[in-house]
């Protein structure tokens, strides 16, 4: 059997190094086009647009097709025509009228019409479907469905006007084909036989999905839209590779072309050793913070929370954990939960509390915390200032940040115990408020709505994502005022005030906003990787003829 082993190795060696396929002449057009290979840790959850399970589901669906209103980003969301040719608002902002393209068909030749959109929203509005987008129809009438005027005209009627960007995003779900799903059992829609074999109307179509292995998309031969949407690649292959190290090896070996979420240290090394890999920064997409359990007497006093913030050298932690060897910082200190990418909305005037150990000690003393027994830990009324900082297991950045934080707290006489929990356990403990301090994170929301994180609990309805819980009725009123303001230009001053109030109250120790690093093989040009999606305008991505690696 050793001979069998040797044979297997010989097979490997005999294959030779990887090279483009060969000898049979590919057709002239496809020979000049390449294949893009993407790798990520998780498989797709679903390709049904109204039931996404992960951000990747949404990213890929949007890359394959056309949203009614395409989103671009430049300090805020900019809207471009997609499936919708044009749209307009009524004067009072309660009606959005959309005119759809009349030249798009599903892969089976049936036209895409306003009926598909109305049907899609009827599913979203139906609680039995369980769509996470059901809140999109909360303020829509009648019954959460748009009004079909004719095949290419549809109207959304809202109960009241609120922020236009938000309203538009609520009316911007990708339609699913009515003629396929109209008789489907709504309770088990996710398991429908066609749910993961979607019909496309966009430039791409699903060619094959091998669960937990790969997903192949290819140009939609039945695409009836404008020529400039025609893809310039032969195929896009999405591979599932759970291990970060394996994805990195594959990227460096050239076996994959695009990898998300590259670590800072690895980015340094790639820059030095792999000039063929282009590194792209996606913008301030996610943040880390330390959330205080505000029901814990240790954290009730604002002076204590401010002291802990002043005792934390956030810039120093960024320098150690999120800055390259060459001095390029991939994070910036956070002052709130609104991403700095929303320039004009993000309050750049808020100066973070300066790192000042002496001032922190003084503030703690003012709040009654002193080291009365000389053991190095401050105390008050016989209680030592000691707490447990919990975070998720498996996240090296947060683990390292915890250790640095623990060390910095020692300087002011605060004792911190570190605990790492499995992800489900950790987030359950946050939502159930069974923690003392938690090091966690949020993703950037490009449609501003601080109520998700900061709204007070209501009677009979706890805001599970307000971990503290933090409750400031004045802030709630301000947030509702901002949400009701039609446009970001007018609501920006309100959001800036919200950020100031939150920063003053320090319900979190805001740590940093991070820039996600994406690595892409340099042979791909016309690529757009931005804060919205790493696969923007996928139909435009291409490879110059002389650099094509996979000729079919």
């Amino acid at each position, binding site marked *: *059997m*050793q001979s*069998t*082993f040797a044979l*297997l*190795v010989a*097979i*490997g*060696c005999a*294959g*030779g*190094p*990887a090279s483009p*396929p060969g000898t049979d002449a590919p057709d002239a057009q496809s020979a000049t086009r390449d*294949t893009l*290979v993407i790798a990520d840790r998780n498989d797709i*959850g679903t390709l049904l647009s109204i039931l996404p*399970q992960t951000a990747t589901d949404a990213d890929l669906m949007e890359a394959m097709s056309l949203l009614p209103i395409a989103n671009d980003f430049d300090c805020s969301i900019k809207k471009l025509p997609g499936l919708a040719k044009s749209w307009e608002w009524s004067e009072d902002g309660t009606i959005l009228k959309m005119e759809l393209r009349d030249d798009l068909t599903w892969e089976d030749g049936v036209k895409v019409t306003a009926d598909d959109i109305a049907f899609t929203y009827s599913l979203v509005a139906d*609680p*039995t479907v*369980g*769509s*996470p987008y*059901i*809140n999109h129809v*909360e303020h829509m009438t009648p019954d959460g469905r748009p009004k079909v005027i004719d095949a290419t005209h549809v109207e959304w009627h809202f109960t009241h006007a609120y922020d236009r960007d938000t309203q538009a995003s609520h009316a911007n779900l990708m339609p699913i084909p009515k003629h396929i799903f109209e008789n489907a059992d709504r309770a*088990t829609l*996710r*398991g429908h036989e066609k*749910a993961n074999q979607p019909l496309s109307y966009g430039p791409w179509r699903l060619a094959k999905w091998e*669960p*937990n*292995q*790969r997903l192949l998309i290819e140009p939609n031969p039945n695409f009836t839209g404008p020529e400039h949407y025609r893809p310039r690649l032969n*195929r896009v*292959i999405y*591979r*599932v*590779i*759970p*291990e970060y*190290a*394996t994805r990195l*090896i*594959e990227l*460096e*070996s050239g*076996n994959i072309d695009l990898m998300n979420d590259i670590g800072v240290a690895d980015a340094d090394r790639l820059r030095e050793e792999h000039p063929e890999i282009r590194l792209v920064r996606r913008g301030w997409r996610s943040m880390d913070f330390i959330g205080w359990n505000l029901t814990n007497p240790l954290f009730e006093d604002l002076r204590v929370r401010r002291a802990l913030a002043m005792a934390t050298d956030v810039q120093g932690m960024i320098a150690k954990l999120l800055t390259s060897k060459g001095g390029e910082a991939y994070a910036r200190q956070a002052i709130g939960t609104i991403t700095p990418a929303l320039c004009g909305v993000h309050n750049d005037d808020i100066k973070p509390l300066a790192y000042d150990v002496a001032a922190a000690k003084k503030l703690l003393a003012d709040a009654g915390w002193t080291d009365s027994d000389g053991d190095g830990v401050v105390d008050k009324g016989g209680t030592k200032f000691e707490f447990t900082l919990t975070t998720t297991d498996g996240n090296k950045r947060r683990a390292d940040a915890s250790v640095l934080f623990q060390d910095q707290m020692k300087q002011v006489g605060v004792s911190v115990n570190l605990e790492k929990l*499995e*992800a*489900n*356990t950790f*987030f*359950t*403990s946050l939502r159930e408020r069974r923690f003392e301090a938690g090091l966690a994170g949020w993703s950037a929301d490009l449609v501003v709505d601080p109520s*998700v*994180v900061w709204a007070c609990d209501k009677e009979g*309805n706890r805001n599970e994502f307000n971990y503290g819980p933090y409750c400031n009725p004045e802030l709630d009123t301000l947030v509702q005022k901002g949400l009701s303001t039609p446009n970001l230009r007018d609501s920006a001053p309100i959001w800036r005030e919200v950020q100031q109030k939150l920063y003053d109250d320090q319900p979190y120790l805001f740590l940093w906003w991070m820039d996600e690093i994406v690595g892409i093989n340099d042979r791909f040009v016309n690529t757009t990787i931005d804060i919205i999606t790493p696969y923007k305008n996928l139909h435009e991505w291409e490879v110059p003829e002389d650099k094509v690696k*996979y000729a*079919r």
Partner: protein
Amino acid sequence: MWRYVTRKLLLAIPLLFCVVTLIFVLIELSPGDAADKFFSPDTPPEVRQNIVAKYHLDEPALVRYLALLRNLVAFDFGRSIGQERPVVDIVAEALPNTLLLSAVTLLVIYPTGIIVGTIQAIRQNRPVDTAASVVSLALYSMPDFWLAMLLQLLVSFYLRDFIDLPSSGIVDPVRYDFMSAPEQLVDRAKHLVLPGIAMGLASAGGTARYVRSSMLEIIRQDYVRTARAKGLRERTVIVRHALRNALLPVVTLMGLSVPYLFSGAVIVESVFAWPGMGRLIVQAIYTQDTPLVIGCFYVFTLLVVAGNLLADVAYAWIDPRISFD
């Protein structure tokens, strides 16, 4: 023998019952539930209630447990909560991949271990014995995941211009669809090499130690001396007379290695992005997908029972003194 086999299979029933019960209890005791993945900060309470009701997560644990047992009796494993597909379909996709990898691993472990252990016994205390012992112990001490990553780095990265062995997946993701049938076979074989070595090499070292020890005991037996005295060639003495008896503990090891293969597969499958049962069960546990977890462990248990049964039958075949009574 058939009575013995039937008895063993019947004993699997209470074993399956215990496994299913234990898994169910452990998942129940875990914080959170399978519906959590469908909730976002914006999910209204009534939608959450609908999702919880849809998956019967609002029913008492005992009710769900009894429903589970009733379904299992009818071999109905239900649908995965996360994927909303029949558990049988999901397991049927992953199981062949794990069985294939396990088969290759067994081919690495036992032939290698038996050959090396035999040579060590024959050349006891000579340099080859010492060298093999050092290497065996070193390999046996290595964690699977470390060896896996080392192989990936060395073979698929540093030596990629000389050796074409892929470091992840089960087929070439780009070219496989355009390959001829023989090329596809070769491609699949290439993808098995590194994961098979990663899973098998460490255990091969351990097996070699067992075989060496067993052979040393056997070759000192009177019947082996008799065989030599009869003038038989040394090769015949070792292979036909000594090795067969020395393999008895190895056969026991084979039966015991079935659970190891599946547990070790979890790590190796993750490192090599091998879409097998190991990865599947880890994902199912993380998402508390009870039907899928139960389905996977049900299959694991059956495979362990089958593996041990095969080991018992092989044991009796090798040693005629052993009876099934």
